[in-house]
């Protein structure tokens, strides 16, 4: 049995608490939150030991592992408190606001031999895992182009008094929503060497972004990211990924994967040339306890199993989440660099002035000309 404590009782914290309390190998030793109301109700009706101070909970309840689901700006300090006491950490995404913190915490965990994991649950979705498996098998060859998207109905009116409406506390579509497709891209394609064309757009919010667009550059590929959390045409959050490779194309969302393979593709078992569709019903096993999607259960189960096995490196460990944080920070920085854009004034290839601009030179190079 692993003794686990939970800090933060928002939407994610409450659902983590429910799932982890139901885990057969877990003994829940404490719950911590800043607001006493919910704590008192939980204590009264479920008998769980509650705390308003994290340090006290870690010292008194002595958990072997802690689940952190607080606002993002609080993550770094809380993670450090836990790691320094030799406690394994599962933390909600994104990991931290300053990527440097992520690197340091990842090193601290490695030094102490502790298990870390971040709640990028999409890596536990059957369809997205199948994408990874197919890429590793080289099914669609070398990926040259990719599109990663996330849409949903979060901010639909100009208001906002919570931490999600402030950039400094980790709010905004970039941190909250775009983080998911970006995390899939870093899983599938690795860390980009550059980002460009980043745009953070406010729709309803005054201090933060409600939509994100950017281009990620890899040695042989580029990926577009588009995300919008003010999109009520979506019933709930949807995350999609499309990858084009030399041997075909993969599209995936939470429910299904659609794969088109050229006749040049090395066919994985069960796949054929042309269209292949697999649904969540065949890609997903029922977990020990289901609350809101198999992936949420599966990621907590993976965390507990890694602790039991003493496996410090694993899916979504701090090191991998730090790579995503880094891309998030780069997009934020790039979006503020107006001068880096090619404007109509600075472009050399206008019809009157330049007989041969960079664009036509590039085109001609593609055609094999000089």
């Amino acid at each position: 049995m692993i003794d686990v404590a939970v800090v933060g009782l928002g939407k994610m914290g409450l659902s983590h608490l429910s799932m982890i309390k139901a885990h057969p190998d877990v003994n829940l030793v404490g719950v911590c939150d800043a607001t006493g109301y919910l704590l008192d109700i939980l204590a009264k009706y479920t008998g769980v030991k509650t705390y308003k101070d994290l340090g006290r909970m870690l010292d008194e309840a002595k958990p072997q592992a802690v689940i952190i689901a607080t606002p993002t700006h609080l993550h770094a300090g809380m993670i450090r408190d836990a790691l320094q006491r030799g406690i394994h950490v599962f933390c909600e995404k994104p990991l931290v606001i300053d990527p440097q913190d992520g690197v340091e915490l990842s090193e601290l965990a490695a030094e102490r031999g502790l298990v870390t994991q971040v709640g990028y649950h999409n890596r536990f979705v059957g369809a997205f895992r199948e994408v990874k498996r197919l890429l590793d098998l080289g099914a669609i060859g070398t990926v040259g182009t990719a599109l990663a998207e996330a849409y949903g109905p979060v901010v639909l009116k100009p208001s906002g008094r919570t931490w999600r409406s402030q950039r400094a506390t980790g709010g905004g579509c970039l941190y909250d929503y775009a983080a998911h497709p970006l995390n899939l891209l870093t899983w599938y394609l690795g860390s980009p060497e550059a980002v460009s064309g980043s745009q953070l757009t406010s729709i309803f919010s005054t201090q933060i972004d409600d939509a994100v667009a950017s281009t990620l550059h890899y040695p042989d590929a580029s990926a577009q990211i588009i995300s919008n959390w003010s999109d009520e045409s979506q019933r709930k959050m949807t995350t999609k990924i499309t990858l084009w490779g030399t041997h075909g194309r993969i599209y995936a969302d939470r429910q299904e994967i659609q794969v088109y393979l050229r006749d040049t593709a090395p066919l994985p078992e069960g796949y054929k040339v042309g269209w292949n569709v697999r649904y969540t019903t065949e890609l997903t096993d029922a977990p020990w306890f289901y609350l809101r999607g198999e992936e949420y259960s599966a990621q907590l189960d993976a965390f507990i199993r890694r602790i039991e096995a003493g496996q410090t490196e694993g899916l979504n460990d701090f090191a991998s989440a730090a790579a995503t944080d880094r891309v998030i920070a780069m997009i934020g920085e790039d979006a503020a660099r107006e001068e880096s854009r090619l404007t109509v004034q600075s472009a050399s290839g206008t019809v009157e002035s330049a007989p041969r601009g960079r664009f036509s030179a590039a085109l001609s190079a593609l055609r094999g000309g000089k």
Partner: protein
Amino acid sequence: MTMETTTTQRTMDRLLFGDNQFFGVNHMSEEKARAQQMRFQDTDAIMRVLDDAYDAGVHTFMCTTHDRIAEIADRVRANPDRYADMKFFPCMPYAHKYANAVTEDGFLGAIRKFLPEEGLLDSIARGTSSLARKDIEGVTTLLIDAELKMFAGLSTPVIWLQNVVVDLLSGLGFTDAFRIFADHVRKRYNAEPGFITMNLPRVLDDLDRAGVENPIVCSNINKIGFRMSGGVDGYLEAMEKRPFRAVAMSVFASGAIPPREAIEWVCGLPNLESIVFGASSKANIQSTVSLVDEYWPER
């Protein structure tokens, strides 16, 4: 049919018509879900399908408390002759609106937001003192009443607690809430409480502990074990041995099982009382009805 349980309640219809298809819920394809959302944004389109189901003998509509359902309820109320045998089995709460409100206003703010605005003095007192005492009974019953207002004057013999809430409470060990829900629904609405869950064996234990006897419980029951947490064997054993009234949903596993195979299998299970299904066309409704006629003639 014979039920080896202690129930004295009237049985439910063998087929209950669900509403996922009307609101873009499809567990297999986001594209299909969107196409359905487009088609059913007009309430007339929903009514036409409901009429097809009603005319095929499917008289129970098991629905969420989505705002759009209020429009459906209005239409049924306005045509008492046309819908003389129509029954609603509301499932509450409509979880998405609460989840979004919690994100926006925090836990307490979300509760306050959904308490009736122009409520009676009684309900204000019930809510406020209950919030202050950290006694969930008052708030819970108020929220139930707020959700069910749209069904006033209609027949609601079974009222369901949604699976996200049931399973959240089950995981937390908050089983008192099941008893509070059951008592309120029985007393105030003269209805049977129902519980929807993705974790049937576990929730049966919880309901036992909460003292809810012979409960109506709805869960995924399908041949391939899709979203049957606790395993197919655990479900089958529960149906064989435990005293509860089983309702099967997702019998086609979102289309992964061919209809005939799915219905034949589920109709062969012991102690199943009803099947919830969704369909968007007359042909699919009729096909399910005739398959059930064929494999479940005694019901």
